[in-house]
């Protein structure tokens, strides 16, 4: 079973690849909306990518108010 740190790293790496930014430029504490310059529909694209990758469903109401990768990873971790 993944640790939270592993999950967080996978989330960051997936986001970097999905939005085509260099892996390593994103940090777990980054606000992904501001750092990536994305809107809500693009955030839902990332959610699909994460759900497919981790094999989970993550209701979007569980990520309401979540804007950093670490907290997002915590939500994912609770579904693994």
């Amino acid at each position, binding site marked *: 079973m993944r640790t939270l740190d592993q999950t967080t790293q996978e989330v960051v790496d997936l986001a970097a690849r999905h939005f085509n930014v260099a892996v390593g430029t994103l940090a777990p504490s980054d606000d992904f*909306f501001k750092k990536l310059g994305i*809107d*809500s*529909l693009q*955030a*839902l*694209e990332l*959610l*699909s*990518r994460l*759900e*497919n990758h981790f094999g989970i*469903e993550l*209701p*979007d*109401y569980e*990520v*309401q108010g979540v*804007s950093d990768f670490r907290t997002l990873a915590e939500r994912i971790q609770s579904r693994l």
Partner: protein
Amino acid sequence: MKSFSGKALRWEWRDGVVELTLDRAPANEIGTAMLADLEQFAAAIKSLEADTSACIISSAQKRGFSAGADLRELYHGAIALPGKERNAGVRGFVERSHAVANAIDAASFVTIAAVHGVCFGGGLELALTCDVIVADKMARFAFPELRLGLIPGFGGIPRLKRDLGNAFVRDLLLTGRSVNATRAQAVGLVAQLAGEGESLKVARATAAQIAKFDATTRAIAKKFLKPIPYAELKQEIEIFCELFARPAVLAALKKFVESTDAMPYLP
């Protein structure tokens, strides 16, 4: 009419297949322009039926199939009118939408929704009028209407209940959450999954297969397989219009329209 190009969509007939492409930036929101063009298509269905085995509905907008009703247009249109006129205006729009949905649902040719990206609200209702939904793996489906104090108003609930188990229908409607294409296939909403960006290709292959069979048999089988819940659809109109008249709905629409929140789709 074998081809058409409007403000919000276009269609082209070729070799027995109609390809209808939704194309109104940013996400094929369903407002007056989209509805007017869909009404053109609904009116053309009878003339297309004799030579058409399948119709594929897809989107040229990157964001997805359709994000649903044009809430900004709905809100600004609603506040411009006093109460009774506002409610009558909404009823008129909803009844026109239902007429379009019923016409597509009842077409004798097979209809295939090729979905990518967001397929929310009215967009999902349009997809549900189709016989087959093909979705790429990144597609998402939702009925977020309860977040606005409404229910789906373009025929979504009766059609969703027609296709799926009620437990999932309750989860989707009562939480307003979105689900990914993989889950949507698992519950039977999506018939076929496609790779990212491949939903139209898969839909075309599906249409080619459908075209092989006898047209009369196909039309009769479709009508038998997919009854249209007219009574429940009429009931949905009444419930929607009753809910829309509540002040809470305009307040929720105002909040959505004025939101600077990063994720305005969430409650």
